[in-house]
C-alpha cells in the first residue's frame, strides 16, 4: 500500500469542467469549436443565399466604368474612371474632412475648455451653453442644420453680379463666400518657387537648431536665451528676401465671377464646409471637457509649489501644468479624433461624397454589390481606427508615469 500523502486521483471526464487545472483549456476548446462552427454557419448561409440570388462574390466591379460624377475631389476623376477610382476619391475626401475637422475641433476645443474655466461669469456660462448644446444634440442634426444655415444665410453667386451687387467679396476681392461654397485665391507656383520652398525648410531647420541650443544652454546655466524674436526673424526674413530676389515667383490666382459661377481660385464646397464644421463643433465640445478635466486634474499644490519657486504664471503653465495635463488629455483626445473620423460617414446627409457616399453609396447602388462594398468600406474604417488606436497605445507607453 502506498503511504503517499497526495493520493493519486484518477482522471474523470467531469474533471474537464470542474478541475481548475483542465477547465481553462477545455473552456477554450469549446469556445473555439463554437466560434468556428458559427463562422462556417454564417459563411455557408451567405454562400447559399448568394447562390439563390444568382450572385457571386467578386471584386471585378471595381474595375468597370463608374459613370457618375463627383464634385469634390483631390485627384483627377471623371465619370469614365473606374469604381475603384471613385472609392479612392471618397477615401481621400473622408481623410480630408477628418483631418481638417480634427484641427479645427482641437483649436476650438482648447479655446472653449480654457474659457470655461474663466473667472468671467458670462464667458464661463456661455461656454457651458456651447458645450452642453453641442454635446446633447445628435451630430446628424448638427450637420443638417449647419448645412441649412450655410445655404440660407449666405448669398448666391448671382448676388455678386451687376453694377450694384447685393453682396461683395472679402479681403480686397480675394475671398467670396457664397451658398455654393467659399472661393479662395489659389497660389500659382511660378518658375523658381522650388527655391523658395528650399529656403523655407532651411529656415525651419535653423529655428529648430536654435531651439535645441537654447534648451541646452538653459539646462546647463539656467539662463533663458531670447529665442522668440530671433526665430520669427529667421523664419520670415530669408523667405521674403529670396521671394523678391527671384522676382515674385508665386502669384495668386483670384476667383472671379464668370457665367453661372465663380471661376479659378480654390473652391471649398458648402457640403464640405458644413460637414467639417459641424463635426468640428460637435467634437470640440467633447474636447473642451477633456481639456478642462485635464487642467483640473493637476492639483493646486503643483501651481503653488511652482509659484513658491518663483516661477511666473506663463512659465507655470508651460513647464508644470501643461506637460502633466497633456498626459491626461491626449489619449481621450485621440479617441475623439477617431470618433470624428467615424462620424464623417454621415456625409451623405449633406451630399458630400466621402467613401460611404461613393463606395458605400452610389457604387453599391449601381452595381448591386452590397457584400463586397460593405466589406471594403468596413476594412477601410477598421484600418484607420487600428492605426489611430496604435498611436494611442504608443503614446501611453512612452508617456506613462512610471510608478514604483
Amino acid at each position, binding site marked *: 500500500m502506498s503511504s503517499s500523502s497526495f493520493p493519486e486521483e484518477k482522471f474523470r471526464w*467531469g474533471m474537464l*469542467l*470542474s478541475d481548475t487545472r483542465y477547465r*481553462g483549456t477545455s*473552456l*477554450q476548446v469549446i*469556445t*473555439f469549436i463554437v*466560434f468556428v462552427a458559427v463562422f462556417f454557419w*454564417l459563411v455557408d*448561409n*451567405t454562400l*447559399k*443565399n*448568394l447562390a*439563390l440570388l444568382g450572385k457571386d462574390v467578386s471584386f471585378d466591379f471595381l474595375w468597370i466604368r463608374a459613370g457618375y460624377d463627383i464634385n469634390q475631389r483631390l485627384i483627377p476623376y471623371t465619370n469614365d474612371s473606374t469604381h475603384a477610382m471613385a472609392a479612392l476619391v471618397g477615401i481621400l475626401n473622408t481623410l480630408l474632412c477628418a483631418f481638417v475637422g480634427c484641427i479645427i475641433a482641437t483649436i476650438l476645443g482648447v479655446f472653449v475648455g480654457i474659457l470655461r474655466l*474663466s*473667472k*468671467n*461669469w*458670462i*464667458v464661463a456660462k*456661455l461656454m457651458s451653453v456651447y458645450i*452642453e*448644446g453641442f*454635446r*446633447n*444634440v*445628435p*451630430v*446628424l*442634426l448638427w450637420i*443638417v*442644420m449647419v448645412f*441649412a444655415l450655410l445655404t440660407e444665410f449666405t448669398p448666391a453667386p448671382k448676388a455678386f453680379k451687376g453694377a450694384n451687387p447685393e453682396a461683395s467679396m472679402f479681403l480686397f476681392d480675394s475671398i467670396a463666400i457664397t451658398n455654393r461654397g467659399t472661393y479662395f485665391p489659389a497660389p500659382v507656383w511660378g518658375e523658381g518657387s522650388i527655391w523658395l520652398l528650399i529656403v523655407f525648410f532651411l529656415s525651419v531647420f535653423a529655428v529648430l537648431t536654435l531651439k535645441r541650443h537654447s534648451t541646452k544652454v538653459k539646462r546647463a546655466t539656467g539662463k533663458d536665451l531670447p529665442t522668440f524674436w530671433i526665430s520669427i526673424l529667421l523664419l520670415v526674413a530669408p523667405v521674403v528676401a529670396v521671394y523678391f530676389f527671384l522676382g515674385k515667383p508665386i502669384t495668386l490666382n483670384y476667383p472671379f465671377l464668370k457665367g453661372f459661377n465663380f471661376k479659378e481660385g480654390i473652391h471649398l464646397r458648402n457640403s464640405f464646409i458644413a460637414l467639417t464644421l459641424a463635426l468640428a463643433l460637435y467634437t470640440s465640445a467633447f474636447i473642451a471637457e477633456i481639456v478642462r478635466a485635464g487642467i483640473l486634474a493637476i492639483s493646486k499644490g503643483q501651481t503653488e509649489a511652482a509659484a513658491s519657486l518663483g516661477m511666473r504664471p506663463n512659465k507655470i503653465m508651460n513647464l508644470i501644468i501643461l506637460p502633466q495635463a497633456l498626459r491626461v488629455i491626449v489619449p481621450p483626445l485621440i479617441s475623439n479624433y477617431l470618433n470624428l473620423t*467615424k*462620424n464623417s*460617414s*454621415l456625409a*451623405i*446627409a449633406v451630399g458630400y461624397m466621402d467613401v*460611404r457616399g461613393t463606395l*458605400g453609396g452610389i457604387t453599391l447602388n449601381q452595381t448591386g454589390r*452590397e*457584400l463586397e462594398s*460593405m466589406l471594403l*468600406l*468596413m476594412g477601410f*474604417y*477598421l484600418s*484607420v*481606427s*487600428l492605426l489611430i*488606436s496604435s498611436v494611442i497605445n504608443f503614446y501611453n507607453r512612452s508617456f506613462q508615469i512610471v510608478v514604483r
Partner: protein
Amino acid sequence: MANVEYVRDKEIPPAPPPLIEVGVIGWVRQNLFSSWFNSLLTILSLYFIFVCLVDFIPWAWGGHWNTKSLRECLDLDPNVACFSVLAARWEQLLFGLYPAEEYWRPTLTFVLLILSIIPILFSRYFRYFWFSVIYPGLAIWLLWGGSFWSIAIVYIGLILGVGAYFILSSKLIKTTSVSLLAAFIFTLFFFGFLSDFLARFLANVLPISLPFIESLKMGGFTLSLIVGVSGIVASFPIGILLALGRQSNLPLIKMICVGFIEFIRGVPLITLLFVASVLLNYFLPPGTNFDIVLRVVIMVTLFSAAYMAEVIRGGLAGLPLGQHEASASLGLNYWQSQRLIIMPQALKISIPGIVNTFIGLFKDTTLVSIISLRDPVGLASTIRADAKWNGIYWELYIAIGLMFFIVCFGMSQYSQYLERKLKTDN
C-alpha cells in the same frame, strides 16, 4: 471734576463694505469687469448673445400654430416660424405611426420605465428590484401587444430553469457544472417543446391580450427609446462578459473578445446599421426574414456592448489589484470573487461612463433614419415629402433637437451628480 476719561465699552460695528463691492454691483464688478481684458470679453459675449437672439426671438415668438399647411403660414406672414407643423404632427414625432387609440401603451411603457429604473439608481428602493426584472417583458408586451402569455411564458421558463438548477444542485447532483448543464438542457427542452403548447393553453384559460402592433408602426421618440433602451439593457450583460474576457488569462477567449471589441469600435455605427438592413439576411439561413426593428436592436446591442465593455474595463482597471488578491485569499473562486467583490465595486465606478454610453447611443439612434426607419429625423423627411409641409425646415429640426437636448442633458446632469456623489463616498 468732570470725568473726562472715556473707555469704549462697545465695539464699533464694522463699516459696510463700499457700495461698489457688494450686491449686484459688486458681483458684476468682480465677475464681469475685473480687468480691461475681462470687460472686453464680457462686452464681446453680450454682443454675441444679442446677435444670436435678435432675429431668432421675433421669428419664434410670433410663430403660427394653427394653420393647416405651410402655404397658409406663408400667406399670413412669411417672416415668422410655422410651428403648425408641430401642432399637426407632434403625435407622430412622439409615437410614429402607432394607432392613436393605443397611445396610452407607449406612454405607460415610458412611465413604467422610469419606475423600473428607480430601484437601480437609488439603493434605498432596491427591494423593488423585481419590478426592474419583469419590466423588459412587460414593455415588450405593452408595445407590441399580442397575448400576454407569449411573453409571460419566457419568464415562466426561466424561473423553472433556475428552480430546476437549485433542486438538482441541492438534492441530486453534486457537481455544479453538471447540474447547470442539466438545468440548461431542461430549459431548452421547455422552450423547444412545451412553451408553445403551454402558452396557448394559458391564453385559452385566461385570455389577456392587447391588439398586436407591428414594428413598422413604431416611430418617433418611441422608436428612439425602444432602440436606445433595449440596446443598452441587452448590451449590459454582454459588455460585462466581454470586459471579463478581455482581462481573462485564457489567450483564445481574450483574443476573440479583443477582436470583437476592436472591430465594432473601429467601424461607424452607420455601416453596422447598413449590415442590419441589407446584409443580415445574407448571413442567416435562406428565407429567414425578421423584423427590421429587431435587426436594428441586435446591431445596436452589439455596438453598445463593445463600448460598454470598454467602460467596464475602465472600472475594473480602477480597482486596486489587492481586491483580487484579497478575494482569492478568502478562498473565493473566479465567479464568486467577480460577483461578490470585484463587479459591485467596478460597476459602481463605471456608472457615469455607462450613462455617457447611453447618452451617446440615444443620440446615435437618429442614424436609423438613414436606413429608412421613422425615428424623429426620419419622420422629418417623411413630413417634408407631404405636399402640405414641403419646404419646412427649421421648425422641425429645432423641435427635434430640443427634445433630444432635454433628455440627454437631463441624463448628463444626473451622471455628473453621480460622479460627485461617488467621489465623496470614496
